[in-house]
Each structure stands twice: as C-alpha cells, then as structure tokens.
C-alpha cells in the first residue's frame, strides 16, 4: 500500500513510523528542512522537502500511485488546500485531513466532502472524548473501550500491588473472575504478550481486559478503590479543556476550569454557565490552596505546556487530590507519568494517530487501539467467510507469536476465550498483537 503523508510533525512522524514498520510504502512531504532531514534520517520513508499544496511536490511524493493521502501539517488551511489539489489531479481513494480549529457542523462536513475530503480528524475532540471517558470510568487508570462490551485498563505494578511477583495463573486463581492480561511492558522497555506462566514484576505496566461490570472489581483488587467523582478541576481552558468540561458537566458534578489568560477565562465563562471559571496559573501553589484543589476528586491538566501538565498533576496528587489525569504527548513524559503517581494519561497525538489508523484499517477491521506509542495494537474485527481463522480452535490458528485473541462477542454474549474455543463466522473478536505482526495478522483475519 502506498501512502502519502503531508506534514512530519508529531502526528505525521508517528503515523509514518508505525505504517512503515508494517511494510507500507510511505512518502512524507515536509516544508521545514530540519524536520525533513530528521525524518529522512530516522524513518524508512521517502521524504520530500516542499509545500504540500504544490502539485510538483505532490507528484514527486508519488501521489499518482498512492492509495491514501493524509494531510496532518500544522495548518488547517494547508491541509484542506492540499487535499483539494490532490482530489483535482490524482485519483486517490482515501483522503484524510486533520482539522484542528474549525468547528464544523453537519452541513460543513458535506461542503468539505465536496473538496475531496473523505475523513476528517479533529485531535482536540478526540482528546476531550478520551478525557471524558477516563473520568466517567473512575479516572483510576488508562481506559480503552472496545466496540463490544469490554474495556481495557492499563496500570502500573508498584511495591504494594497484590499482583507483584505472581504468575498470570496465580492471579487468575486469586481473582476468580473472567479477565485477561493482554500485555506487559517491562521496566527495561521490553513489551510482551504474556502466557499463563509469565510473572508480573514490580515496575511492569500491565493491560487488563474485562467486561465493564467486572473491571472495576479487578482495578479495586489491584489496590485502587473506586471513588465517586463529584469535584473536578481542569487546568487549561483551551479547546480540549472546554470540550472536556462540557462533556463532564451534569450529574450534579462540581467543575472548575482554571486558565491563566484572563480574556480566555471571560470568554469561557460566557459559554459555560454551570462551570466555575478561575483566572490563575497552574504554577501558583497558593491557587491550589485557595481553590482547595486538595479536596477534589479529579484534577485534569490540559494546558499547552506538557511540563506544567505533568508537574501540576503530580503536585495535586501530592497535596491530596484523589485522582489526576495529565495531557501529555512526549513519549518519555508518558512513560514517566505512568511510573509516577499520575493515574491516567491522555495524549492528543496518540488518539489522533489511533483514529487515523482505525480509518486506514477499515473494512473487516472495525476498531484499532494502539498502545505504548504503537508498540502493540488491539484490533477489533468481524470474522468473515474468507478468514483463515474460520472454524478453527484458537490453539490451532497459527497466529504469529506475540498475538493473542483476548475477547469474542457471539450472539450478543461476551466471551473471554481459551485455547479450545472454536471460531465461527460473524464472531466479533479483539486480537492483541505486537507491531511487527500487524500485517501478518491483518492477512489472516
């Protein structure tokens, strides 16, 4: 598959990295010379330095043979215009555009269709949705919700964790509920898809999949009691903060939103009537005292600065806030946040990458959830007639090593399968796999 990506910023770079590792042919167009050279040096892609709206550049990048065009430069206008130029001159079946600032209604969407855009992705809406979900599920862990009635939670194993130094068998025996440990990230950076004998160690970051009603019991067992969330403080009244506040409002919740820009605060307070808007700086310790952040259930840090997000989330936890969610994009910060006391991380970059991947893989695959910066993916799909898995027991499927079928939905019932489970047509399944096996798995399902 040939894919042209315009823009080698955070999202573009990450997408190119992930897709090129799956042996797809990627060309990147990047205006900035330094970024272009960086991408050229570190990615297995063709990098063209030039404007994404320029026909000659688009041709050089191989648009005449491309199956997909993804515009993710940092300018909405460039993204739209380049997509328009591509639609006029080439015959590319799928064109994806990232639009950040434009709030569009349904009608707008149709007019965007007219200039050739097939799929619009707004990272801020995605991130806000992710914040709302995480809070609604207790804000205790990273949450991934599948289409079928299952969810995946990730959490850190620390000294106090009852999972520490136990094998998966032992943990299963102890909890006696239907669940599956789908992935373990070791302290040294190795990522493994575990078997029953794998030992969970201190410092691991593990992912657990279970039904909605049992997952909270497991999370609780792991040492995090579930809490009722009433008081929420959001730092940063940018688009993400405001959309998250809107999504969280209601249910008798007390929501505070804090921003250091006075004009922005005034504007937000005029839109969000039921929400308290505070003008203040997340760096200011007195503000935390004044507003009694220590007594809040959840703090969400969503300012423009990742450093402030990480530090103020940690600070809130330190003074007594029950849960903290930080908005972070840098891989090393996310890793640090997981190790330290931050309960959950929301990454606009990764959620954007995920939803683009979901669109790319569309077809038999209905959901894609990438974790640990794309080191592994959970693929959700429907078993078709032509599937190589059809009518086989899971243990006989010859799936590549490091892949695991973690959940099946059949006739509206959710099953966490074992090795003897026989796969039937129209089963909805979630398969968990390491990045190097993605293309093999894609061919099998």
């Amino acid at each position, binding site marked *: 598959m040939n894919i042209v990506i315009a823009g080698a910023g955070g999202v573009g770079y990450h997408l190119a990295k992930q897709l*090129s590792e799956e*042996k797809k*042919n*990627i*060309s990147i167009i990047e205006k900035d*010379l330094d970024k272009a050279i960086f991408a050229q*040096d570190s990615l*297995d892609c063709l990098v063209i330095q030039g404007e994404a709206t320029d026909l000659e550049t688009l041709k050089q990048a191989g648009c005449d043979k491309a199956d997909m065009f993804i515009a993710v430069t940092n300018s909405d206008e460039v993204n739209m215009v380049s997509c328009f130029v591509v639609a006029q001159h080439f015959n590319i079946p799928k064109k994806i555009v990232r639009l950040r600032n434009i709030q569009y209604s349904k009608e707008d969407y149709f007019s965007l269709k007219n200039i050739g855009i097939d799929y619009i992705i707004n990272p801020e809406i995605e991130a806000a949705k992710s914040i709302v979900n995480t809070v609604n599920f207790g804000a205790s862990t990273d949450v991934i919700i599948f289409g079928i009635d299952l969810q995946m939670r990730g959490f850190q194993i620390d000294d106090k964790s009852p999972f520490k130094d136990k094998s998966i068998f032992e943990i299963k025996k102890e909890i006696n509920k239907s669940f599956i440990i789908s992935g373990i990230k070791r302290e040294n950076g190795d990522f493994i898809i575990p078997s029953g004998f794998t030992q969970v160690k201190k410092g691991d970051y593990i992912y657990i999949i279970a039904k909605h009603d049992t997952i909270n019991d497991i999370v609780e067992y792991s040492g995090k009691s579930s809490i009722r969330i009433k008081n929420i403080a959001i730092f940063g009244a940018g688009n993400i903060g405001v959309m998250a506040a809107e999504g969280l409002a209601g249910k008798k919740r007390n929501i505070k939103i804090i921003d250091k820009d006075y004009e922005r605060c005034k504007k937000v307070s005029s839109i969000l009537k039921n929400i308290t808007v505070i003008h203040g700086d997340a760096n200011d310790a007195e503000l935390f005292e004044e507003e009694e952040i220590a007594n809040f259930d959840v703090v969400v840090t969503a300012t423009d600065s990742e450093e402030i997000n990480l530090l103020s989330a940690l600070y809130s936890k330190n003074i007594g806030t029950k849960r903290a969610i930080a908005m972070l994009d840098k891989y090393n910060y996310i890793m640090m946040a997981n190790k330290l006391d931050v309960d959950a991380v929301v990454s606009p970059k990764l959620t954007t990458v995920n939803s683009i991947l979901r669109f790319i893989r569309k077809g038999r695959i209905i959901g894609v959830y990438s974790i640990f910066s794309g080191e592994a993916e959970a693929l959700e799909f429907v078993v078709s007639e032509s599937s190589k898995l059809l009518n086989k027991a899971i243990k006989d499927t010859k799936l590549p090593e490091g892949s695991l079928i973690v959940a099946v939905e059949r006739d509206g019932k959710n099953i966490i399968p074992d090795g003897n489970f026989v796969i039937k047509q129209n089963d909805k399944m979630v398969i968990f796999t390491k990045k190097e096996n993605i293309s093999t798995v894609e061919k099998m399902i």
Partner: protein
Amino acid sequence: MNYRLIVKFISILIIITSIFMVSSIPFAIYYSEKTIPSFFTVILLGITVGVLGLVAGRGAPNTLNRKDGFLLVSLSWIIISAFGSLPYILIAHLSFTDAFFETMSGFTTTGASILTNIEALPKSLLFWRSLTHWLGGMGIIVLTVAILPMLGIGGIKLIKAEAPGPSMEKISPRIAETAKYLWLAYIILSAIETILLLLGGMNLFDALTHTFGTMATGGFSPKNSSVAYFNSAYIDWVIIIFMFIAGANFSIHFRVLTGKLKALKDEELKAYAAIVFVAILLVTLDNLNIYKNLLQSLRYSAFQVVSIMTTTGFVTADYSKWNGFAKTILFILMFIGGCAGSTGGSIKVIRIYTLFKQAINELKYNIHPKGVFTLTINGQIVRKNIIFSISGFFFLYIATFFIVALLVSMFGIDILTSLGASAATLGNIGPGFGKVGPVNNYAWLPSTVKWILSTAMLAGRLEIYTLFVIVTPAFFKK
C-alpha cells in the same frame, strides 16, 4: 552498544559470502583443478561460524544507533576480508598478510595486487578474486539489507556508512527496496557487459572476471598484462564505456533503465562527463608523438583516463612511459574519482563540484561583501553543514593521503612510489606510479607497508569518516 546484533549481522554476512564462494566450484570442475576440497573447507567453515554466530546473536534487539552502525560496517569489512583471504592461503599458499591485502584490495575494489604470476594460479581462485570485486562494488552491506530487510530503519544507517558519496538518494520509499533496485541495475548492466565481451571473443571465464572488474571499478584481471592481453580495440572500447557507466550514479542508471531519461539531466553527471572528456582530449593530444595515429592515441588514452578516473585500474598501456603532462593529468584524476552512488572510489565528483562552486561564491563574496550567493545543485539549495562536511572530508582525505605516503616512505621507498601507492590505495584505484606503476605490483613491499595500505584501502572505501570515527576517543565515551 548492541554487540549481539553486530555478531548476528556479521554472521549473516559470512554465510552470504560463503554461498557466493560456491560459484567458484563450477570453474574448478570445468578446468579440472584440485581446488575443490579447499573451497569446500572454507565454505563449510564459513557456514559453521555463521550459524554459531547466529545462535549467539539470537534474540538481539533490532535497534541500531549511529555508533553501532559505524562499528558494524567497519568490522564487517575487516572480518569479511579476513574470511575471504582463506582460499588464497589454502590454495596459493600465500602468507596471511598477502592474502588479506589481496582480499581487501578485492572487496574495496582497489585492484592492487601482490600476485606476480597471475596466470599460473587456478582459474577458480582467480574467479573468487574477481568476485570479491563484484560483491564489494555495490556493497556487501547494501546487498545484505536488500536480501534481509530485518533491520528496517537501522538499514539506512548502515547503507549510509557504506554507500559512496555524501548523500544517499532513495529511489523507492523503502530502504530495502532501494537497495534491491540498485543491485538490480548493477546485475543488469553486468549481464549486458558480459554478453558484449563474449561477442568480442572472450571465453565465459574472462568475460565474467573482466565484467566484475569493470562494473565494480575494481581492476583485477586474471591476465598478467591486464586488458592489454586481448589487444582488441572492440574489447577496449566496451570496457571504456562500462567503466564510465560504473563510475556514474547507479540510481540514475536505475531510472534510465525504467525509461526515465530525464534522470540524465544531473549536474554531477554532466560535470563527470565534462572532466572525462577534457582529460581524454588533453591526454590524446599529448600522446600523439607516442602512438603516431590519432585513433590509436585516443584508444589508449581514453582507456587509461577512464580507468584511473573511475578508480578501476585496468591497464592497456604502460602510462609510466608517457610524457610528464599526461602522467600529471592521471595523477590529478586519481583524486577525483567517480560520482556519488557509483562503485568508484576517491573523493567523488560531487564533492569536488560542490567545493568548486563554493570557492566561486567565496570569490564573489570578496567583491560584494554584502552580496547573497546561494549554492544550488540540481536546483536544490545546498545547506551550509553539508558544505562544511564536504570541506572536512576533503581535508581528511588529503591529510590521510599524505600521512599514508609518509608512513610508506619511512620504509626506504622513494617519493614517487610512496605518493603513488598512497593515492592508488586510498582512492581504491590499484596501479600507482613509480615501483607500483601499471606494469609493477605490490608484492615486493615490506609486510608492514602492506598492512598500512590495506588500512588505507578500507578507509578510502568507507569514505574516511566511517573508519575514522571508530578510532576517535569520543566514540567509546558514553
């Protein structure tokens, strides 16, 4: 440092080299030579060591950083040369020094030989000798990346550390595909030359060995008197044309082979052709008094100019008997070499061309101190740090040239021979001047000098930087 991956990669390299060595055996059978047991021993040894290495390096993480890349490439070349020298030791009973020199000379496509009576050796060994050229020409590491895309992004670092020229042009989004296409162009052009040489009356053995020598810009010939042995104008001209092709960028060849003739509009290619043309013209005119007729003079002059400039080193005329002017031109050409992305060595046309343009700009700055002059090549602006890197390379190359010459002269060797040997090995050319000239060889040199020159060949093939960074103290600091 990811030593396990380095072990794994070099093991694969040894296995690939062993497999290529098998192709000597049909010649041993055809010419009824007693070399088969020796070849079998080496091949079995190679595969055993390779498999053991693979077991040792099993499960190594597939990530290479920059330092790993430099170390891996340098070590690969040294180890493969040591391995490739085994047939010489077993069959021709050469000392390890001589065998290593000959193999390093083969893989680095230098073509400097320590053999005095080449034709007396078994044909199967001579075939292996020429095959080392062919494998080294496009790069054994490029080949490995093409066959085994296991390294992914790491492959770029390796190819960059090995590929000739300051930048590596991609002809396909994926590095493994690019490596495959380059090898494809290399194989197609080699096949065409072999056929043309067969038509000129050579037998298959001679056609293949000379093709390997030409396409890799190597210069090993299985004949004592090199290409002059055939004394055929047709063969001379075929080899001239293919030496010229081998000295040009292979990504251009690939584009032309796929019908994109626009690729020929390349500034470096034009500069390369212009230098070759002017040099041929001057040498031909200067040689008129030696060869009497213009066509004869053109044939011998063109052959030697292209052979030296592309760093091949085939010989049809004893240029040490030419006039001073012609010899000086050849000496200067030794420092230019082929294009980036070719199999040729030396400084490379693109670097000379860039420095030349920059020098012109500096002259303009002297006249207009506030003027703005940009250096463009093929319409693209060349960045400052690339110009700095090229200037640094140029300095290091010339400095290495003098240091090697100095070291060689310490062993009581005259100035012309020292300078000639240094330029000819560092530039991967082969024949030099003085006592290592076109009708002499390197056999008589003391063994220490042979080791110095082997190192110079490797330094030249890996474009100075790759070999030099691993001996800087900063390389081993965290």
